[in-house]
């Protein structure tokens, strides 16, 4: 399937610029070890699915509560290397998000500050292409969290399974569908997974959602892409 290309960032060049411009050692290391082969076939790319649970949707006012990471590639998802952190948000937990994440105040009270996980988190991401469902959240929240603590934000290439799904649905919808503005279909993670007969998950914590996102990308890749497709067609 061929999708309309979105505005493509030349991540290869961008990482070179970032290595030179950053003052921070941790970030310099992260950029130096970033996966930097835009022509690599998707079957050879190391991915890591990432999901945050947050106190709300606004990255300016809300903060990260937990982080889930699941490394994988086209062939396999490696649960044994997955990571899960609960961290102390600087803002108060909203009552509604407590319900969704199942994370309680007492758990958070015992958790470390995000400061403590910056290094292990960036280390786990290094050399891998980050995969998320809905790029804005993880990208903005991570950027703001680092801005707050390191006085410097972060940029990284990522693959957005929601974006892939939107393109796939648009391609299915066709020109006529667009003209008549037919319903595209839900882009929520659960609904996207249903389209590929992936199981419904009852638990929603950062780790399960990261696993769910990894499985979704595997399914999307095997349905919509050739094994030899270069990663530069997917990342943004």
């Amino acid at each position, binding site marked *: 399937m061929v999708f309309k290309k979105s505005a493509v960032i030349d991540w290869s060049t961008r990482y070179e610029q970032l290595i030179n411009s950053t003052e921070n050692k941790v970030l310099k290391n992260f950029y130096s070890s970033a996966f930097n082969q835009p022509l690599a076939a998707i079957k050879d790319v190391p991915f890591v699915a990432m999901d945050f649970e947050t106190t709300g949707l606004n990255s300016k006012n809300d903060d990260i509560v937990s982080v*889930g990471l699941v490394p*994988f590639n086209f*062939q*396999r*998802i*490696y*649960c*044994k290397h*997955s*990571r*899960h952190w609960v961290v102390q948000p600087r803002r108060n937990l909203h009552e509604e998000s407590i319900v969704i994440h199942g994370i309680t105040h007492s758990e958070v009270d015992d958790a470390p500050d995000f400061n403590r996980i910056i290094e292990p988190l960036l280390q786990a991401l290094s050399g891998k292409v980050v995969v998320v469902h809905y790029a804005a959240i993880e990208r903005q929240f991570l950027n703001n969290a680092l801005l707050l603590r390191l006085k410097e934000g972060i940029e990284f290439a990522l693959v957005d399974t929601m974006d892939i799904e939107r393109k796939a649905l648009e391609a299915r919808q066709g020109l006529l569908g667009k003209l008549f503005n037919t319903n595209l279909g839900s882009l929520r993670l659960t609904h996207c997974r249903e389209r*590929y*007969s*992936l*199981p419904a*998950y*009852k*638990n929603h*914590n950062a*780790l*399960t959602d990261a*696993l769910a996102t*990894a*499985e979704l990308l*595997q*399914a999307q890749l*095997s*349905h919509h892409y050739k094994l030899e497709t270069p990663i530069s067609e997917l990342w943004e």
Partner: protein
Amino acid sequence: MQAEQVEIAQFLAQHPPFDDLPNKALNELAQQVEVTYFRAQTEILHFGKDIADLYVVRSGSVEMYRRNGELYNRLSVGGIFGQMGLLMNRKVRFPATALEDSLVYCINVELFNRYCDEFDAFADYFETDGNVRLHQAIVEQADSNDLTTAKVKSLIHRDVVTVNTTSTIQDIAKLMTEEAVSSVLVTDINKPINDDPEEDDGQVVGIITDRDLRSKVVAQGLAFDTQAQDIMSTNLVLLDANSYVFEAVLAMLRDNLHHLPVVQKRRPIGVISLSDILRYESQSSLLLVRGILAQQSIEDLAHYARQLPNVFVRMVNEDANSHMIGTAMAVIGRTFKQRLLGLAEDKFGPAPVPYCFIALGSMARDEQLIVTDQDNALILDDSYDDEKHNEYFQNISDFVCDGLAQCGYTYCDGEIMASFKKWRKTRSEWFDQFAGWMAQPKPQALLNSSIFFDLDGVWGKTKWADELKIFIAKQSKINRLFLANMASNARNRTPPLGFFKGFVMEHNGQHKHSMNLKRRGTAPLSDVIRVHALAVGSRKQNSFERLEDIIEANLLPEGKAQDLRDALEYIAMMRIRHQAWQIEKGEEPDNNLDPRQLSPFEQRNLKEAFAILEKAQSYLKFSYSANSGVK
């Protein structure tokens, strides 16, 4: 620290063999799992390739094939594959393809081996030594249901009779008469069978039949010392033991032959005749019943009864369910009794007072199989006079019970047979007996008498048996203490669930490796069903029919009666197939099944069936306690 994979752990906890793992081990496993997605119709495992994981279907479905492309198994959510390859030589044995879009969990072989070492139940699930064999046996049985798939060796029922090329035709005629055969094979001592140095009479070179003696010897006035080689037919069509029955039919039609020698590696093992094939075709239970009634002596009946195992195997091969097989075997058993009673009355004269011969237990329930003992009794007319009539009824009872024993229905261990005087009672005595059992129940007394609550009239005044059934149905319903006692007895024989957990450990004792499917399966299930049937006043005797009454009466929670039916059918069929398999292998059929002969799939089903029994037994405990209501 590793992150906890809640979703994966919860999924595994619902599926065997993972459901038996301790929590800690389960969580560790969930953390180690690798996940992979296969689009519909893509190959997952390729024959002969290396394999390093055990696979669990998380969503979708997967098909496994034999090397020749035949479908071997279709797996749905929770299904497991790849174990054969892991256990053999880490090469894929059964190629696998995703039938639908599927998500699959992979468990690394090192982890798999470690869990097999650490957890017996986990290892048992994958124990495969015998299961492939039994599985194949059952598949083979299921296939051999007609002329096109049955093999000729299944038609050979007696040893081959052979003569030498130099035997005289008079000796041959004598031998054929003695052996009661219509043909003999002629072997040539000068043509040895190379790979069979012992007992080598040589290869088959000819055949002599009744017709040859008539047309070639008598009609042409040949001397009685003419040698076999001078009259034998040499245009032989030899059948290999593994050829199919339909090939034999074709050969007979093509060459107008009525006898075909069957050889195994050139060694003669038998002759099949046109009548063998016709008999094979007509081996249905109904014909057998007609045949029973035509027999004129106990000896004839006993001889005729030898066909019974074949009929049984045939029915199993024809895919009959346990109810059909049980009914057929019970009808046959009843017919044997009726014929024996007919012969008894011929011998000892007509009965001095009317009577009814009743069958008890499994035969009354129409659940009789091939391995069964006789349980029976007599109802005598109230005009019975012990001094005048006892001898007559002792005589016919002995005659029938001895006759049944000769026909393969062994004597009852519990001495519940008409030949014991205490089980020959008048009608009034029987009513008193049942009333006593129900009004003043004593657990021990009931334990020995529960068999009487399955009864069926076989001969004579059978309506007396029906009257007793009605009486029991009315009385049992209102006698809570009686039901409570029956319920308590029905919980005595527990299902062998422990077997599935640790049977590897039990090495001492002869039958430690096997479980008795009757004593710990079908019998306690029938006990449980009997209690419910008595509680709703059912007059039915058969467990499946009793369950229909129980469902109609709405006695049990939704679905429970259906569960009992499924469990009974599964265990009964397991027992039936096991016995059919033993008969075909030439073994004495029994009820003892070694669960290691089962596939993991069958083990799982059997375990579930036993679990239903266990639940049903504990349900009895609180629903029929002596001081509570039925519902």
